[in-house]
């Protein structure tokens, strides 16, 4: 088991009840996990907990052989070696594509830095855009820069929060395929969050269905979504057709 999350619980200080309740999950190395759930079910919160941007009220998170957090210890996000692609990408507007990617490589030797930047830019097919600023890129290109930036420092684990929500439907389908190719090419273990079943189905090795902050179901796409027609009743997720609109 590469990632091991046990009895994770969390409550926002100003909220009445816990946002995350007794969340358990194990992930193999290189696996792509999708967390699927309706809006407000706590998907982003789970990612933030794994990233270290929030401190859980209870539970352990192990990545590789390292304990990221337990009831007595907490590793800061910058020390975790976990990468994240944000919903709005959060590309630094005052830096070029190249500088954005270089940002996570500050401790690398100069020569390796340059090489690595070339590598990831090639991976996401953006070699010609090095000197551009984020606002000079299209939505899809921005997303690929965000991916390249997160991949560059070779994270042990990569997190995506609604990676497609800012793209139009056509682009979403094309990028989905490409994203899977890239992730599999690097072999990085990934978790991505979505409310769209198509995304989950196309990308994930396994799907975790989240409801009100607790795991409702875990399994392969065909197990969870498959041909089970009672699914839409059980799952308060938008029907497929609607999610296109």
């Amino acid at each position, binding site marked *: 088991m590469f990632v091991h999350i046990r009895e994770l619980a969390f409550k926002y*200080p100003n909220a009445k009840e816990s946002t995350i309740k007794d969340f358990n999950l194990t992930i193999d190395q290189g696996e792509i996990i999708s967390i699927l759930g309706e809006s407000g079910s706590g998907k982003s919160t789970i990612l933030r907990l794994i*990233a270290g*941007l929030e*401190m859980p*009220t209870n539970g352990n998170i192990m990545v590789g052989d390292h304990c990221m957090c337990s*009831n*007595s*210890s*907490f590793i*800061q*996000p*910058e*020390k975790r070696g*976990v*990468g*994240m692609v*944000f919903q*709005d990408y*959060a*590309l*630094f*507007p*005052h830096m070029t594509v190249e500088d954005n990617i270089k*940002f*996570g490589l*500050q*401790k690398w030797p100069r020569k390796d830095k340059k090489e690595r930047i070339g590598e990831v830019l090639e991976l996401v097919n953006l070699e010609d855009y090095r000197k551009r600023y984020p606002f000079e890129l299209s939505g899809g290109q921005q997303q690929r820069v965000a991916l390249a*930036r*997160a991949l560059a*420092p070779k994270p042990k684990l990569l997190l995506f929060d609604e990676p497609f929500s800012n793209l139009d439907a056509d682009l979403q389908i094309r990028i989905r395929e490409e994203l899977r190719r890239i992730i599999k090419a690097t072999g990085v273990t990934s978790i991505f969050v979505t409310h769209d079943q198509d995304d989950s189905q196309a990308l994930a090795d396994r799907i975790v269905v989240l409801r009100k902050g607790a795991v409702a179901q875990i399994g392969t796409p065909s197990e969870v979504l498959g041909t089970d027609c009672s699914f839409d009743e059980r799952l308060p997720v938008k029907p497929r057709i609607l999610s296109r609109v």
Partner: protein
Amino acid sequence: MKWFRTLKLTMNMWTVLSIIFVLLVLLPNLSIIVQFFSEPNENWLHIREYMLQQYIQNTLVLVLFVGFLTLVIGTSLAWIISAYDFPLRGFFQWGLILPLAIPPYIGAYTYHGILNYTGVIQTSLRNQFDMTVNQQYFNIMNMPGAIFILTIFLFPYVFTITKAFLARQSTALVENARILGSSSWRIYFKVVLPISRAAIIAGVSLVVLEVLNDYGVVSYYGIQTFTTAIFQTWFGMGDLQSAVKLAGTLMIIVLFLLVLERIFRGRRRYSFTTTKVKLLQPVKLEGKQKWLAFSYCSFIFLIAFLIPIAQLLHWATLTYKQFFSNEFWGLIWNSITVAFIAASMIVVIAVVISNFARLNRGMLAKTFPKVTILGYSIPGAVIAVGIVTFFTAIDRELFDFYEWLGLQPTLVISTSIFMLIFAYVIRYLAVGYNSIESGFDRIGTNFTEASRMLGMSVTKSFFKVDMKLIRGAIFGGFILAFIDIMKELPLTLILRPFNFDTLATKAYQYASDEMIHQAAIPSIIIVVVSAMAIYVFHHVLEKE
């Protein structure tokens, strides 16, 4: 275990510095509260028996009248300018903020100079028309005069806040009312005033705080208020202890007013949501109405800016030689240095506290921003009393310490410029803080989090990302604080070291010594610098 984990994580440099800064801001104020309850001396009993009532009465009369008049002028101008189009509207949009560039004390002696026996009006009447007027009608140095002065130079606070609110938040309601055929007066009283209540109250409370802070106008016009009383008991009678009591009383009044403001403002805060702003479309006025609106705005602009400026410029031509004296350049140097140092410190402290507050949850992160606002609500004279008592106490400790070390003992802090700068920082921290906080609000925490996910600590993220993104807000906060400090009078008068003068204190002194002409050039410099800043902020930045 868990609390220990939390403590270890939150105890970083940002937290520690924030706590230190907040304590520094709080201590002088606490110092007043503590001494407020000390045993009263005879002098205080006398003051309380025979004079306190007068102070309270005068202060309240000033606050009530100026508050009400600025409300009327500020909101009516804001409404006319937001809702109607008429000649020079574009200019008045920011031109009517310009009176803020003239500190009321400068306005006070300028108007006195215009109206008195040797002033331009009476001399013209005498020379041109051979008329001698009853001095009584031309005497401005009384309560109505002070109300007039404070009103015309402070109404822009109400005007700007209400205008900003109306332009962005009232569109739907006002357009509906127009469609339903309501008359303009009806809309003003039934729609505009009620919906902008929170904004208006915010503006009026700024005015009230300025009135309570004022020393220049009331002392020049010979009106007994709390601030003048604090000066008199302290310097006239040498009774710091009673000054503390007065300061404490005034502080209680201010706190009472702040609570009142909260209640009146209600739950709705005036917030400028930036998303999906639909601007109110002004209606073009025709015929008589057009000229009525134009005349009203022109009249206010004339008396609140143009006339005093023209008078100051005229005096300046009589005394321009001043400009070439070393003493004068010394004043400029003093003003700029203290304002620069204090504004820089303000920016640093504001950045540390606001960055701490936005990246943390919990009690401290919630209360600290409120503490930084505190100083701005408390009149300068009160802060001065707090600081002096606080620092003399420290100095006395140090005094013993030096003796114990075998050094030549001196009172170091309480006689140095350090105290003045410290006071500026407390009083104007809020100005820098607001600007920087709104900068942080705009960028949110996403960039910081992205940076941390890429391996940068909070501090490194701040320098590499956040600071670059809020450069404008930091600079804005610095400029605003700088200008407020340059204009400041009561704190500077009380706390400046011996023989240390700034443009503001010198202008005030010339005026008090009946050398009004000499006061013109330092005053004009203050006004011009402030006006430039207003122009940049409201004209250039608003267009962006």
